[in-house]
């Protein structure tokens, strides 16, 4: 059991159903229990000024959604429990993950861009910036077994190392193969090759098959990563995030969030 427990945070959206899919696939393979949770924000439900009917509607609807998820878990032979929380959606998920000591949080995302993204808050991205628990985000239906081949983009820093180490552990548990990739910069390919060699050696030492690809950074980094995931038919992407928030995020942006918003495969993010 690699994950101890999986937390699948859901709502009534379509991507949430994909999160249930992926949660059940992983839990079945890992033989770990799943906790399905729905977090209802009391402020957003206007519970603060006593709109009990709307809260009651939301609560009974949440119970209905969770009952559907539990039924699917039972059919898949996965042990599962469920929780409805009245809390800020992002903090509620993080607190529950910490309290239950889960190994990973799985969530769906709409992957909104442009004006829609500016107008609506992405709970998945908010969780990503604040949690230290690994997070698996999905916006399209999972195809296949999702853990066959992981694409592991990384750069030469502490977080990059953490990403490939985590991916190696994951691959060891799920019998996966790894595709390491890094972006070449102005210093040329040599540095990139060294990085890839180091990661491949680390994987080989633990009996994991891997290949490495140095990518040229002509286009945006996120689209280069996503292109490679398609070319090499990877089942999921494992990457690290700085979890920048506020002004720093505005200035530097986030490659991980850009990947999440456009990826066709699940993205597992560690911090």
């Amino acid at each position, binding site marked *: 059991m690699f994950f101890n427990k999986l937390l699948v945070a859901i709502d009534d*959206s379509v991507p949430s159903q994909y999160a249930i899919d992926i949660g059940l696939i992983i839990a079945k393979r890992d033989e770990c229990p799943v906790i399905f949770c729905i977090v209802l924000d009391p402020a957003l439900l*206007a519970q603060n000024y006593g709109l009990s009917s*709307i809260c009651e509607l*939301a609560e*009974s609807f949440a119970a209905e959604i969770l009952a559907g998820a539990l039924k699917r878990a039972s059919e898949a032979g996965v042990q599962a429990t469920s929780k409805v929380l009245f809390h800020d959606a992002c903090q509620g998920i993080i607190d529950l993950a910490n309290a239950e000591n889960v190994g990973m949080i799985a969530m769906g995302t709409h992957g909104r861009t442009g004006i829609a993204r500016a107008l609506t808050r992405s709970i998945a991205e908010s969780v990503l910036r604040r949690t230290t628990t690994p997070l698996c985000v999905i916006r399209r239906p999972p195809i296949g077994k999702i853990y066959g081949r992981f694409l592991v983009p990384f750069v030469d820093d502490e977080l990059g190392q953490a990403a490939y180490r985590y991916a190696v552990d994951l691959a060891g548990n799920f019998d996966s193969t790894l595709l390491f990739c890094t972006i070449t910069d102005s210093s040329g390919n040599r540095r990139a090759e060294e990085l890839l060699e180091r990661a491949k050696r680390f994987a080989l030492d633990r009996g994991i098959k891997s290949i490495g690809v140095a990518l040229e950074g002509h286009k945006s980094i996120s689209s280069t990563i996503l292109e490679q995931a398609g070319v090499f038919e990877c089942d999921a992407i494992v990457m690290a995030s700085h979890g920048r928030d506020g002004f720093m995020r505005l200035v530097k942006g986030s490659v991980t969030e850009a990947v999440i918003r456009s990826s066709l495969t699940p993205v597992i993010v560690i911090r």
Partner: protein
Amino acid sequence: MQSGSPPQEFPIAEVAQHPEAGADLYVAIAAATLAILVDGTSSATITAGLPYIAGISGATPDEASWFVTAFNAPYYATILLSPWLYARFGRKPLIMIGLLGYALCSLALALSSWYPAIVSLRFLEGTFLGCVFVPVVILLFTSLPLAAMRLAVPAFALVVLVAGALGTLIGGYLTETYGAAAIYVPSALATLVAAAAIWYYAPNYDSPQPQLRFDVVGYTLSLTLFGAMQYLANEGERRNWLEDPNVFRAIVVLTLAFPAFVAWELFYTRRPHANFRLFAAYRNLAVGSGINIVLGIVGYSVTVFSIFLQTVIASTTTLAGEVIALRTLTYIVGVFLAFVILSRRLIDVRIVVAIAAIATAVALYGFANAMTPTADAATFIGVSLAFGLVFAMLSQPVPALVIGALPLRDLPAGIAIYKLTVPIGLMAGTALVGTFIDHRAAFRASEIASAADLSRTAVSTFVGSGSSALVKLSGLITAQAQALAYRDSMLLFAAAVLLVVPLVIFAAPPAPRPPE
């Protein structure tokens, strides 16, 4: 309930969240919003076009008032019945019956010029439209996904507010541009579009309860009660109240029908359709209904303002409607502000309502001061925008107060009561303020005329200026007296809205903040 008698059985309709996704969601919400808009504008639209409708049917003023009464009495009675209809027939079938019936009656009205046919069709039109509001609001609430449920109440409040402000514009524009028959066509087409959209896109999760028995006596009493109220609101002052035997009869009918209806529903029937016990069980329902009645009285200021614009400053009905519709621009800001303040719990809902009521009184005072015979439409732009902002902040929390305290099983009944309390206030406002304006106009005319004696140099110079000077002077006095009477009525509205402040003190405190 009398001791020893079997317990009353209230109809309980199924209310559950069945959110749509993608285009279905938007179409279902748009259709529900359109139906609420038609419902909210229908009465004011016809009132604005009443002189034109009377013209094509050759109806006298006495007969024309039945165009309003014949619609409103069954409309209000059916709103109160609609939670029962919802439980009996299911949500979607009831919406379809209501919308299609209303559309067909409206189209038939557009082709009718025979007085008895118009009155009969108006009766049916009101009956069908009364079916619509409760199930459509439930459709709006239950079609939203979880993330958007926070928007249910502000969106609902905004649509209801906007509908209330657009009726005069729509009615005025249609009758002045296309003639009286055209007044029925847009709402008929809008309901047909809404019906088609709901038929195809709204989810069908209905469990009709055919075993429910119709409360014939209760409905008849309610119809009689609302008919008498509406008749008095229309005709009371026009016929000089107790000097007219018909008004006297209506007062007797109202005096008998009201306690009879309440007693029947509370004690004498096992299958009531109106659940008055909710007022005792939920304090905020009673408080919110009281506030809504006050808002209904204040809502009559729209009609008074429209008459002022048309009679004193000689604007067209369309222009009057445009000036009234101006306030919708700031409604959205007011609703949003109130929502943010309340949902973030920055200020207690009772304080928000009290402050907004005082601000609304100040805005009405501003209206009163702007109402002079020399004013024009532009004079009211600033005060209309300010009124829109504060009135929206006052109105937005009220649905939460009225229906917010109710559990899901009582939501349809709560929505019906919420909907009905505004017209009750409006009818009271029509009767009271209409009488007040007439009396104040007479008093002001007498006051100004008595001051205009020939000992004043300006008056004697004016009278001596030509042969038609006395006629002109009389006209000036009447115009000034009317303007002052309308100004006085706005001050009365300002005083009335302050009643909200003591009322809201009785509201239950907000639910405790959930643990975080």
